[in-house]
Every structure is written in C-alpha cells, then in structure tokens.
C-alpha cells in the first residue's frame, strides 16, 4: 500500500531530478573549441548528465534518504529520553539536564560554524564564510560542507527534544521558552554572521516549532522588538545587506550594481513568456544571471519551462508539504511529531523565501531552493531529513514503546 512516506520519497526524487536536469542546463556555457575560434558548445549531453557530478550527488542524496528511512527512529527517540518530564521533576537553572544538553549541542554547532573562518578549512565564496572544506588533496571542493546546513537540521531535532522534555512547562516563560530561545538566538546569530537567509530561516522554523510545542504566542510577541532590533543590527553591520534591502525597494536605481541580481532574475523569469524558451534555451544562464545553478535556479526553470514548469515545481513542493503534514497529524509520539513538523516547516519556509527572492518579491538573501538548487550538502541533508520523516511514517504502526523516564544527565555528567 502506498504510504505517505512513499509519496514523500517520490516527490522528493522528482524534485531532485528536476534539480539535476536544470542544474545541468544552467551549467551550459560557451567553451572555446580552438585557440582563436569561439562557438557555443553545449558541453551537456545525456552521458554528461547521467555520469556527471550532479547525478552522483543525487544518488548519494537518495541513498541518504533511504538509509534514514530505515532508521529505528522510535528506538533512537527512546534512547535519547525524548519524553515529557513531569513538571515536578523538572530541574531548574543553568545546570538542568535539558539546558546543559542543548547548550552543549548549540556550542558544537557554533564551533562548526566557526570552523568556516579557520584558514586551511575555510572556503570563502563571494566573501562569505559559509563553507568548510576538508583539506583532502585531490578532491578539490567535492568534500565541502556548509555548517549552517548542519545547524539548520540539528536545531530542529534539538528544539524538538527540548520542547518534548519540557512539554509540561513550555507555556511558561522562564523554564519553558527562554532557554530554548536563548540557544536558538545564539545559533542564529552565529549563522547570520555569514548567511542571513539561513539564520532567518532557522529562527522562523524554530519559533514555529516552539509555538507548536506549547509556547505562548504573546511571549514571542514580547520578543518582536528585540528580534527586530537584532535583525536591523545584523543588516546594518554589513553594508552589502543595506544595499540589498535598498535594491529590493528600487532595483532600477542601480541596475548594474546592487539591483543587478534582482533585475537579472526577473528578466530570466520574464523571458519565459508563458510557455518558456524550451529546455536548454535559456539566455540568462550564459553569464547574465549570477548563481544561476544555485540560488536562482528557479529563474532558469521559469525561463526555460515557463509557467508550466513553475507550476510543477510549486505543486511538488505543495504535495511534499501536505504529505508531510499528514505524517505529522498521524504521529502520536510528541518528539517525533515535532521533528516531523520542524522538517516540513524548514523546507516550506526555505522554498518560499527562495521563490520570493527569485520572483522579485523579497530582498536577495542567498538561500537555496531545497532539493533543486545545486549543492551536495543541501541535497544530502534535506534528503536525509526527509528520510527521517519517512522513517517516522514507516514506524507509525509499531506499538509504542513503554516510556522510560530517566532524569540522569544525558551527555555530560
């Protein structure tokens, strides 16, 4: 019988395949064939697509998804003591089990993010420290990861765990919301230093997760001024973000400078003229639209495949989200339910931000379209998190394990 997990897998693989095709299309470039003659050579053929790097990345991603699918998530959740602690047993203060655990994990994420600034490990792209490159000779940038990606999915699990443990007090500010918010805030700030978009994404997904776990909305409302100030500060700390914001408000003021990305992206979308120019026949990818394989891949999809292509991609995301929501609603285990919700909201928010940026509805942020934008780390981790979602669905029929309450410290003594 076709289960939600199967549908999720099919949708995800469909999106990945669109990604492979479109990334290959966007890779097309003019290659000089002779010393003094330049003609357009596609460099893209069936073989180059089938045996190219993107296909290998996709296969790795699918394998990661399948592995995660088979994970005994319930057993793992039991081992992680992801159960609600009765309110009278909840420890208070900085040295409580829950806080120590999430603080330690957050510190680990921040450490990873910091590695991107270490010479020898860092890989600086366009002036931002988003990548760690394992210095293994001969592999080039094949083994480079984005720590923010790890933090993104890690925070989902971490917050879900915390919220589950403190489910009884989540509606209270001090023992419930504040520790989670502090950790979330710190990680987000660390991420924002290099990648505003992802930081914003982690923060939004985290907040939704905490609200779902029982946090009071008015507690968040009280934080809005603070958050806004933090956002403003982050924007103002680096002038290029200001430029991006002003460019969003009027990209035509400086069409060759700050407004360039946005105008070129919208031009690419416009070029589709309804039916699209045809697969491979986009113009903007030939050096006009920067980051056409990653953040702006959707513009190329619109240009080459038209409204139909955009509709298919949006529908697949919609389907993915609703299949995921189905799993969330059927789930009885609180921890797994929150994890599933976190995964779905993260993907949904990321996709929406990306589409908004590409179509000129939001300021340029540098955030990838999940499962489609070129990027091994992104594909692998997104697929793996979807694998987790599928694993949750796979094991929903299994009898619930007898809950086991253990208040011993989990990680550190």
């Amino acid at each position: 019988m076709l289960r939600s997990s199967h549908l999720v897998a099919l949708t995800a693989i469909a999106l990945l395949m669109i990604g492979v095709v479109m990334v290959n299309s966007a890779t097309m470039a003019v290659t000089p064939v002779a010393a003094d003659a330049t003609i357009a050579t596609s460099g893209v053929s069936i073989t180059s697509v089938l045996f190219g790097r993107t296909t290998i990345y996709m296969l790795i991603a699918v394998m990661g998804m399948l592995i995660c699918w088979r994970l005994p998530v319930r057993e793992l959740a039991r081992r992680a003591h992801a159960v609600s602690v009765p309110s009278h047993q909840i420890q208070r203060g900085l040295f409580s089990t829950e806080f120590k655990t999430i603080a330690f994990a957050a510190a680990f994420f921040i450490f990873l993010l910091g590695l991107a600034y270490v010479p020898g490990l860092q890989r600086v792209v366009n002036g931002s420290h988003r990548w760690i490159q394992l210095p293994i000779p001969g592999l080039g940038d094949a083994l480079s990861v984005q720590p923010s990606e790890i933090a993104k999915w890690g925070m989902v699990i971490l917050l879900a765990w915390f919220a589950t443990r403190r489910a009884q007090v989540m509606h209270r500010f001090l023992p419930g919301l504040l520790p989670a918010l502090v950790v979330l805030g710190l990680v987000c700030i660390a991420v924002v230093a290099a990648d505003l978009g992802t930081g914003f994404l982690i923060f939004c997904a985290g907040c939704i997760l905490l609200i779902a776990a029982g946090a009071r909305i008015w507690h968040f409302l009280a934080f809005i001024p603070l958050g806004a100030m933090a956002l403003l500060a982050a924007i103002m700390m680096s002038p290029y973000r200001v430029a991006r914001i002003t460019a969003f408000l009027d990209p035509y003021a400086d069409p060759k400078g700050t407004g360039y990305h946005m105008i070129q992206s919208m031009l690419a979308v416009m070029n589709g003229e309804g039916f699209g120019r045809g697969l491979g026949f986009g113009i903007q990818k030939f050096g006009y639209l920067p980051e056409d394989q990653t953040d702006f891949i959707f513009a190329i999809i619109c240009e080459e495949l038209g409204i139909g292509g955009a509709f298919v991609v949006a529908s697949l995301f919609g389907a993915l989200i609703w299949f995921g929501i189905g799993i969330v609603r059927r789930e009885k285990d609180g921890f797994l339910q929150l994890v599933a919700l976190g995964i779905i909201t993260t993907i949904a928010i990321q996709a929406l931000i990306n589409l908004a940026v590409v179509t000129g509805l939001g300021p340029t942020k540098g955030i990838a379209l999940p499962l489609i934008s070129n990027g091994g780390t992104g594909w692998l981790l997104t697929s793996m998190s979807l694998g987790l979602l599928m694993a949750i669905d796979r094991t929903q029929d299994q009898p619930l394990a007898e809950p086991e309450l253990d208040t011993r410290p989990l990680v550190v003594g």
Partner: protein
Amino acid sequence: MNRVPSRRVSMIALICGGVATVGLMVMVARVAQLQLAPPEKLVATAKAQARVSQATQMGLRGDVLDRRGRVLSSTRIGYRVFVDPTLFPEPFEESVQKLAAAAQIEAAKIREPLKVAREKNAPVLVSMKAEEEARKKERRELTPVGLGKMVLAELKGDEVNPGEGQNSESDKPKLDKYVPIGRGGEVLSDAAAEAVRALKMKGVALERHQVREYPGGAEVAPIAGLVDWDNKGVMGAELKLNKDLAGKDGGVKYVRDALGRPLWIESSNVREPDHGDAVRLTIDLEVQRMVTEVLRRGAEECDAQGARCVVVDTQTGEVLALVDVVRPMTGLHDFPYEDKDAPVGPKVEIPERRYRLTQVPPGSESDAFLARNRCVEDVYEPGSTFKPFVWSTITELGLAQPSEVFNTHGGHWITPVGRPIDDVKELNKQTWAEVLINSSNIGMIQAGQRLTYNQMNEMARRFGFGSRTNVGLPGETAGIVTPIQYWTNFSQVSVSYGHEIAVTPVQMARAFAAFCRSGDLAGTIVPLRLTVPELDTTGEPGQSVVTRVLPADVANYTRDVMGLVAENMEAKIKVKPPSNRVGAQKSSEAADVPQWRYSIFGKSGTAKASPLPPFGKRKPKGAPAYFQHQYNSSFIAGGPLENPRIVCIVVVDDPGPKRIATKTHYGSATAGPLVREIMENTLTYLGVPPSPSKVETMRANVPILNARSLAKPSGGGN
C-alpha cells in the same frame, strides 16, 4: 505515555500548510504575471539589455569586366587597423612606434588621430571617474547613520534621489573607442596584417575592408573609373553603374553570452549579403590597348597635342574602344582665358602662338584615372567629316543628283554671305558625287543653299548632334547646334561644310553608323552603349530602339561614294601592309602594290581648332574665334565596305607646324592612316572575313568627271 498536546501540533501544521500553499500559489501567480504582463520598467530594461549582437557580412562590390570577361576592376578583402585609445598601452610613443613598424605605416599617421581622440576622451574619463566616486560615496552613506539621514531628509521632504545619475545616460559625452588608422587607402599588406595580429597589442584590432583593384590598367582607367574609400563609384563606369555594382551588406543577428560570444542564431535573423552584380562593359581591353598604341604613335608622328578615337560596333551600338591620348609636350602656350566672374577687361591682343588645346587636369599625367574623357567631354568642329550627312540629306531630298555637275570655280569662290572660300582640289567642274569625294567646300555650299534653314537644322539634330549619346560616361557634353531661331545664312553656309557646329567623337561615331549598317537597317542609327545588354527572357540580347535617319538606298549609295574617299586616302599611305586579301593576285605587278585585308569607306575632315574655355573661365574680349594655325584633323570610317561591322573615328588634335608647312596636316594624311590601321587590326581581331577583291562595279555607279578625283587603281583586276 508520552503525550504532548498533539492537537496543537496538528493545528499549527495545518496552518503552516495553508500558509505555504497560499504562498506557493502567490509565487506561481507572480511568475505568470512576470511572464505574461511584465512591468514596464522590466520590459524597458530587457530592451536596453538586448542579448543580441549582429555580425556583418560584407556585400562585395561587383567586378567591372570587359566585353570578353577580362577583369577591369575587382574587389579583394584587405585589412585596416583600428585602435581603441582607452586601451592603447602606455608608454604612448613606444606603442605607436611598435605598431607603426608592424603595420608599415608612418608613425605620424598613427600618432595624430590617436592624440586627437585621447584629448577628446580625457575630460570624459575624468567625469566618469568622478561619477564612480560619487556612486561609491553614496554606497558608503548607506550605513545606519547615512540611512537615518536619508530617512530624515525624506521626512523633511528634501529631494534625495540616489538614482539621479542614471537618468541622463544618453546625454553624456561618449568615449571615443574607435579610431581607424589611415582613412584613404591605408590597407595593410597581408604580411603587415599578420605582423599586427602577432603584436597582440591591447586596443589594437584589424577590420576587414574592401579594396578595389584595377587590373585593367591605364588604358581603360578613365572608362572603368574609380571608387572612393567607401567603395562608392566616383568616376567613369564605377560612378555611372554604381547602383548595379554596389553590394549591400548582410548580417546575422545572434544571441550572445555575457562575454559577447555567439550562442545561436534566432530564426529569421539572417540576412544574406547582397553582392553587387558584375558589369560587363562593351569595351574590349585588347582593342582598347591596340588603339591606344596606334594613337600614341600617330600623335608622336604628327607632333600633335593628342588624339582621340572611338570604335563602335554598328550592329549593336556597343563601344569597343574609347581612347583619349594626350601627349606630354613642352613649349605650348596657355591661352589667356579669363575668370568667368572677372569684369570684362579691355580688348586683349592675342599673339599668334601654338596654344594648348587639351585641358589636362592636374595629376592626370601620373594617374590615368584623373584624365578627362575627351571623347565625350570635349567638342570640336567636324569640318569635312560632316559633309556625308549634308550630302546624303540633299541627295535623299532629290535636291541634287549624283551626276549633276557643279561649277566649282577653280577652287576659289566668294560664298553667298561674302566670305572667300577655297577647295583643296582646284577643279572647275565636278559632279555631285565628286563634290563629296574631293571634299569640295564650294560644291557643298552651293547645294546647301537648296535646303531650307529648317531642313539643314533638322538634319543635324536628326543625326543626333546637339544631344548627348548617354553612352554611360559621366561629364558628357551635348555639343552645339545653333538653335533654329538664331539660324542665319551664315549658319547655312558654315554647316554645309561642317563648321558652326560642335560635336564630340562619340556623336560622330553614332551618326556615321547610319552608313555602316547593312540591308534594311542601313540609314538607321542605334543608341551607343557601354555595357553589354542583358539577356532578355528568351535568352536573346534586348533589342535597341533604332532611329531611321536616311532611306536605306541613299545610305548605301553614300557609303559607296565614300569608298572612293577611303581609296584616295589609302593611296597616300606610304607604309602598306602585306597583302593577305582573299583572292588577291599573286602576280609580280600586285606584289609591289600590297593590299589591305579590308575595304573601308570614310571621310576626312580638317577644321581650325577654336578656344574652348575650361569650366569657370571665358574667352577674353577680342579673342579670335579660331586659332590661326591649329587644327583638329579627323578621319571617320566604316568597314568592311561590303558589309560594315564597325565605325572608327580618329581625331588628331593640332598636328605640328612641320605638318602644316608640308601640307600634310589634313585629316586624310594624319588621322586617315591611323583609322586604316585600327580598322584593319580590329576587324581581324573580331574575326571578320576579309573583303573580296575590289570590283569596278562600285566605281561604275559613281559618276566621275575628273580623273584627279580617283586614286590610281590599286590592283585588283586591271
């Protein structure tokens, strides 16, 4: 049991799903909006940033060919250097020297235009730099404080428009980034082009340029003409036929990548270059060359200032050769022409000297292209060569019979208008036929009096005098025929023997063709042409409209009479060709009287030359109507006699004083032998069968009174 408030999570999940779905729908709608109804600003940007480039494909100028397809003018691709002064490497002088050495161009020719461009660019570069600075500053101001200031300014209502600089894009002075080196013929040799390419100097590039070459050489230069740097005809056939010859550039519009490299061609964006048509002239390079040679020699022998010749195919009106030879001479005097605008001065005493008759444009001695086409541009008085037209018209009208005897008063007479007139042959009585053969002025004037003024005037116009031949060369003159309202008996008398009328050699050739066409077409004239006619749909050359000027029998009869004129002329030629006439007797008698291959007919003429003021000048007051001892001696002939194919006229301009002293300056003695030789060579070259042995039947037709009218029979029978 592990129970979190699962209903709350479900709720939030549903809300998230709903919001996400709406969001995705908004995105698709936005895509649809951008694709189907994009905002105007975006469309404008797309238009401004067209991803399309054009590659030009040269439309080559057509070749000019002679009638047999020999190339007179052709086009090849050459290379020219152009420089982007903003990229030209420093130090300036060193780079200039390097480029000059490679391109084999004088350094100054590179330095000067570059300097001009650099000076022009300097202020633009400064303002561009300032603008860039301003933009950077603006960006720096977008800090919190700067932003705050901007917001404050906005609130106060001050105008702060960061994008102001972009609005006046089109008004800005543009950088000069294209400086061609050497306008006017500085096309590199292949080796130099290769050397420049090898330099790989920044900002230096080669562009293709069409270079016109003239393999036809100096003989046809004034006819084939010349093009300017932009390959537009400026002289000769190149100018007249520019429309046919000119090519139109084609091009391909292609989509390019951000670096300008071609990607692909969008459909319907290919325009084939339109190469110009090759034009075949009727000129035969070989005949032209031969005629030039003969004229040069002839002018030298006669000590003449120059000579002109036109050879026309009388069947089609095609001009086979059109040669103008000007002999470089010293010791000639320039006639004191006055400026047209100068006030009329007192009467000037003009001394009798040998004046320069030919107008030589400056530089034409070294550059044949600059020479005038005197065959179409300069007029002369035809003198006796005009008599056949008058004679045949009077005969046609029945006003004189060939056998009618005229009293020619021993060669000295006073004309009805009171002028004394002499004949060369001093005879008392001559038949009307003899009047033409002996070129009797007295006889012609007497007969001319029988015509009305109208008839005489109309005769000249009918034969095409006073109107251009439109042969296809620029600068052609129509000649001068006195208009009928000014026609007096002076005109009547003068025109009778070819004076008071100004003609060009091409007009003479056209008119004389009336006697050079056979059968029904005899007596008709055909328009001259310089290009080979296009084949019509049936594959036949298009027919020209012919004009009848005489009845065929009169034309043929006049031709027969002129055959005797030619015989007389031939008798005077000292050097004769070896006989190769078909049927010629190889007797010992005939051996010392060698014969010509072709019989011809013709008429000589000698007329005093008159001053022809050049453009913008006029004759001074008191200037004589004619130069006293300077003549235009001409001979016009058709041949072969039995079935004419070509007409040839030679005008010898001003045979030298020695010739005049020995009375050998007449047309039959100067131009005649040249015509004879040209006819012989041309007809042989054209492969015309030789004339049969001369028979007496023709002479029997022509009533002769005086034995002196005939040359000693030159072989052939008795």
